[in-house]
């Protein structure tokens, strides 16, 4: 029985929608003009939320690209000067053995050792300059998304043999080798002959304000070479650990530090640098900035929608006045006040919904135009329509329809049937 009543209620809404559509179709031009505000409001919400979410994704991507998700670093910090306990005084130092042990730790996907050899004299037949030399691990450049534009990067064999091979920064190619091919050529670093095996370029970021151009002014050699000829005693400056995806990041970080402490017989001679956490806070900051923008955009779009609502309001008042006689007839046939109010409210909601649908289409069009313009500038800028934004805009338009339709509809409902019929 209740089911049947519910069905009847739904079918009643269907009747009202049919009446409303008939009325809208009879006044096509007026209806379209009425909807301008709502169409623009919804279109701006849809396009703005789509664009801002696409930009957000791009910025997020870049941060991911420059950063090192799920990594942390263990850094040798040298003997402390302010220690009181005897064992802390004894500085053991990070070693190649530590790296081997850490590599075998559960949950560690990869380790990358690093040594700074400092600024050293680099020279070829063409030029000589003082260049920062960095000892890195195999595949480290690729792991950091620093593109190898020529040749190859350091391989495990280079690390094992502490080979005298170098990957040079892109900006160093011209001064050291002119226009000749640098791969396979020789460069002297601190008086030792190295073979150039690759050229690395800085990563390019469009949205994140970070300068990585220093990457192109450095020379990268196997970190084991730096250990052997600069540090001695198998020492390493720091090691980066990548945590496997299916392991808990903080737990692995803790396990790594514990292992190192044990191996150093309790000495706190290293620091943990959680660059992933720093990255996360950068991302959160970017999110905050974008959230601020979203509020501004939503306010503008909201004002547009409300202006659209005022248009709807005035047209509905006109419509009620025009249809006084029709209202009177409906009342004579037994329509009560709420019936008449629903008649106009549904018309208002359908108009608003129609505006919202047109607005979503328009907003999608705007987004596509933006993509086309970006493509015209040779940029690949994919902007998917932001669904939550579109849904919110449509719902808000419906609310506007109800709010601004309420007064005209109630006015129609309060008409006196005798006076309404007398308008003959």
């Amino acid at each position, binding site marked *: 029985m209740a089911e049947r009543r519910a069905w009847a209620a739904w079918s009643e809404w269907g009747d009202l929608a049919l009446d409303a559509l008939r009325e809208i179709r009879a006044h096509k031009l007026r209806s379209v003009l009425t909807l301008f505000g709502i169409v623009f409001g919804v279109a701006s919400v849809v396009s703005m939320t789509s664009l801002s979410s696409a930009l957000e994704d791009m910025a997020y991507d870049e941060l991911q690209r420059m950063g090192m998700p799920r990594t942390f670093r263990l850094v040798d910090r040298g003997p402390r000067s302010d220690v009181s306990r005897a064992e802390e005084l004894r500085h053991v130092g990070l070693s190649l053995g530590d790296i081997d042990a850490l590599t075998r730790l559960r949950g560690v996907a990869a380790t990358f050792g690093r040594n700074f050899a400092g600024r050293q004299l680099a020279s070829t037949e063409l030029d000589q300059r003082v260049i920062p030399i960095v000892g890195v691990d195999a595949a480290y450049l690729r792991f950091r998304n620093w593109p190898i534009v020529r040749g190859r990067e350091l391989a495990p064999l280079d690390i094992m043999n502490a080979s005298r091979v170098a990957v040079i920064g892109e900006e160093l190619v011209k001064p050291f080798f002119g226009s000749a091919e640098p791969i396979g050529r020789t460069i002297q670093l601190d008086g030792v002959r190295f073979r150039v095996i690759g050229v690395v370029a800085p990563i390019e970021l469009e949205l994140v304000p970070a300068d990585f151009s220093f990457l192109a002014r450095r020379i990268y050699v196997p970190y084991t070479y730096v250990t052997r000829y600069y540090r001695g005693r198998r020492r390493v400056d720091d090691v980066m650990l990548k945590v496997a995806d299916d392991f808990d990041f903080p737990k692995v970080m803790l396990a790594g530090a514990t292992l190192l402490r044990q191996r150093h017989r309790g000495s706190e001679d290293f620091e943990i640098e959680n660059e992933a956490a720093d990255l996360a806070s950068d991302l959160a900051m970017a999110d905050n900035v974008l959230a601020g923008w979203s509020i501004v955009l939503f306010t503008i779009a909201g004002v547009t929608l409300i202006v659209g609502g005022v248009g709807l309001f005035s047209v509905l008042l006109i419509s009620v006045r025009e249809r006084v006689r029709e209202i009177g007839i*409906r009342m004579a046939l*037994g329509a009560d006040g*709420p019936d008449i109010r629903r008649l106009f409210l549904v018309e208002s909601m359908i108009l608003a919904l129609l505006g919202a649908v047109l607005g979503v289409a328009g907003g999608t069009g705007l987004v596509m135009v933006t993509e086309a313009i970006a493509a015209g500038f040779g940029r690949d800028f994919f902007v998917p329509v932001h669904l939550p934004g579109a849904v919110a805009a449509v719902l808000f338009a419906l609310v506007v329809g109800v709010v601004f339709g309420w007064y005209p509809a109630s006015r129609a409902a309060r008409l006196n049937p005798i006076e309404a019929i007398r308008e003959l």
Partner: protein
Amino acid sequence: MPLIEARGLTKVYRLGRVDVPALRGIDLEVHEGEYVAITGPSGSGKSTLMHILGCLDSPTSGSYRLDGRDVSGLRGRALAHVRNRKVGFVFQTFNLMPRMTTDENVALPLQYRGGISRRARLRRARALLERLGLGERIGHRPDELSGGELQRVAVARALIGEPAILLIDEPTGNLDSKAGAEVLKTFREVHDAGNTIVLVTHDPNVAAEAARTIRLVDGEVAA
């Protein structure tokens, strides 16, 4: 028990500070199956009486029982519901919805009764139109129909809800004599089928159709 039982009906309109009496105490009884005409010159109160009898308005004083129920105290929604179930109106100017087809027009009162599906409503409307000889006009819009046909569609709309009384206001005012005769014939058929008709007119020829005539003068029933 009479279908309509009015006792001492008065209606006073307030125009600014002046009270204008439209009805000055009407006693009226209409029994089931009667065909009654209410006549009188303009300003005699016959429209006001029709509005009260049709539950479009309520009397200032007096009692009105329609189909056994006192409706003189009802207002607003309650009155609308009585109107929907008990009264069928036929207006002088037909008053069909121009954007609806004939069957949709006829089905309209059932929409306000609630609980009847659109399909069922239209089925009943079409059956009734067939019965009134308007089967060929189903699906047409009012602007495609002649005056006489329009008035018969209006009659169908008044009858669809199976009301206690049919209230007809100046049915031939907007029709030529041929169409007028056609419409009067329809009323007779409807009356013969057992419906109770109250017809308001100032045309003596139309009033002559009815079995009984009540003449109003200055808001009172003339002797």
